[in-house]
């Protein structure tokens, strides 16, 4: 079942002769449980595409369908609700709230998703699941980069979203921490069936993807599915 579909999506910036197409006429379908990586050089349109899948941005042309809902005609408020209930984000720079503890950062996601009470227990459980038991009361500046990214993963995951979007999630991490974060994401995908969609130009990370979508100059140049052993499917 498709979690997200892109239908002839184009995203342009500027008008007239200054118009630049960041993404051109892309059609894709992301199924539930996929572990998909968008690869490509800088400026190939990976982030633009993830923004549209994540309902942070809307296409200039075409449509994005998330959980059977077309985002084309949704209001800003409805898009916010869709993001709150359906999509989790993991960012390259972690993007944690610096004034909140690790636990509060995770709880915040639950509260924004509409859960007003009993947010502490599920948040603590998720932190434990990503290996941060005992770090709940620490603020982001008291955590390493890898630990911060694990908090970000817990935050994205805690509301049980249909889709987690991670834009270059290991770009700010060293090799060891990057690998650990990827291990966690992969384990969550395999054990809980959570759909991950992430971008990278790091070959070690791309290797982990079970579907690899290559982007070049805003168009899909290849879409390769691989089996769990790493071979082409």
């Amino acid at each position, binding site marked *: 079942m498709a979690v997200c579909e892109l239908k002839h999506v184009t995203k342009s910036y500027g008008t007239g002769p200054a118009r630049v197409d960041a993404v051109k006429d892309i059609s894709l379908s992301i199924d539930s449980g996929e572990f998909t990586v968008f690869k490509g050089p800088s400026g190939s349109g990976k982030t633009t595409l993830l923004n549209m899948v994540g309902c942070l941005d809307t296409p200039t042309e075409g449509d994005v369908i998330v959980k059977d809902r077309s985002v084309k005609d949704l209001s800003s408020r409805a898009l916010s609700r869709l*993001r709150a209930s359906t999509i989790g984000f993991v960012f390259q720079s972690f*993007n944690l709230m610096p004034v909140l503890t690790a636990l509060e950062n995770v709880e915040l996601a639950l509260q924004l998703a509409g859960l007003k009470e009993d947010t502490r227990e599920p948040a603590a459980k998720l932190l434990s699941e990503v290996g941060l038991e005992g770090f709940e009361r620490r603020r982001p500046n008291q955590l390493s980069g890898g630990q911060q990214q694990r908090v970000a993963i817990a935050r994205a995951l805690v509301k049980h979203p249909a889709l987690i979007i991670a834009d270059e999630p290991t770009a700010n991490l060293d090799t060891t921490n990057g690998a650990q974060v990827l291990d966690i994401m992969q384990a969550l995908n395999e054990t809980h069936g959570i759909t991950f969609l992430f971008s990278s130009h790091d070959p070690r990370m791309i290797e982990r993807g079970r579907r690899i979508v290559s982007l070049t100059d805003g168009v899909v140049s290849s879409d390769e599915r691989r089996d769990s052993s790493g071979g082409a499917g």
Partner: protein
Amino acid sequence: MIIPRLARRNLFRCPRRVILSMVAIVVGIGVFILGEGLVSGVTENLKVSSIESMNSHVLIRPPDYPEGIQHPVDELLEIDEEVRRVLDEETVAWTERIIFSPTAAAGPDHVRARAIGYDPVRDPEVFSRALWQVTAEKPDAEQNEVLLTTGVADLLNLSVGDTLILRVRTHLGAMNALRVSVSGIVETGFHNIDSMGILMSLSLAQRLIDADNPTHIGTRLESRDDSEPFAARISELLGDRAEVQTWQEDVQDLMGIQNIRRRALQIISAILLALAGVGMANTILMSAYERVREVGTLRSMGMTKQGVTGLFVFEGLIIGIVGSILGALWGGGLAAHWAVNPIDFGDLIDVWGEDLAFSALVYTRFSMGTVLFGVGFGIVVSMLASIFPARVAASMPPAEAVRAE
């Protein structure tokens, strides 16, 4: 709830900036509350001083009586039985006074004074002696004794037991002079009397002006608010034989000036609060621009534009509420303190003029309504000032904001 906690903690990220914004609110609210208390206190002082020094609730005096320090005795009051009956029945107390302007001489020094001859029994029932500070007993008319106010005593360098000569133009225009002795020095608390007053019994004043009738009748009513209907009634009875003046008419010009002062204070307070509001808007706007990525992240997590607006307005509200409460504590605290412990404006009053009916001791008026209005106004200004920067934050495109540096 995490979101209020987030707002509260965000304020402590740049405490100096927040404190500066808060101080502006504190000053604005404090000046407003204290200023209102002071203006109200001065206004009340003017009213009470008029009533308790010279005018009483309703003053009856000869027609076309001049304002100022001239006190002619050419025309005296003729009060018939009907008027006396009304005064007896419709006032709490009334009293006769002879007010005239003798020249007081002691050695080579002399001064034009304001003499008040009063009924020692009835006068205190109309004109309060609560603020009087007197060094000796009541003056004895038989012994030609007078009370000198501090102003005259200082000018003529006289003290208790000394004598002075009062030169007076009598009711019929002849000159009269009498050597009187000082039985005491008095400070009535009202500048228009203390600066140039000589107080004596009514009978001594009658002898000096060579007439029995009074120049003034003062009245005390149940309530000072009853003065206008009572004045209308007395005026109707007396016709053009006398002039009837309420305390409101006496202070009318000063009240006009007070209203201008109050309005000026309100404008100054509004300007201060507007400046505080601009400072607050700047604080929230800077905070918004420093937290672009956080705003983007909140939006990516599902916070609506309204939610982001609410978050920043809430931060502004915290500054406004704390600032307004501190301002109310400061301004209201001082207003409440001076409402019990008066401020002494004695030195200032000497500069204002000797005929000003005003007590040197000014009690501020503490009003809980003013405090609550001030706090509410401060909060509303803070909220309004936060809306624009909050909307700027809310309108940041989330796709760009989440990756802002």
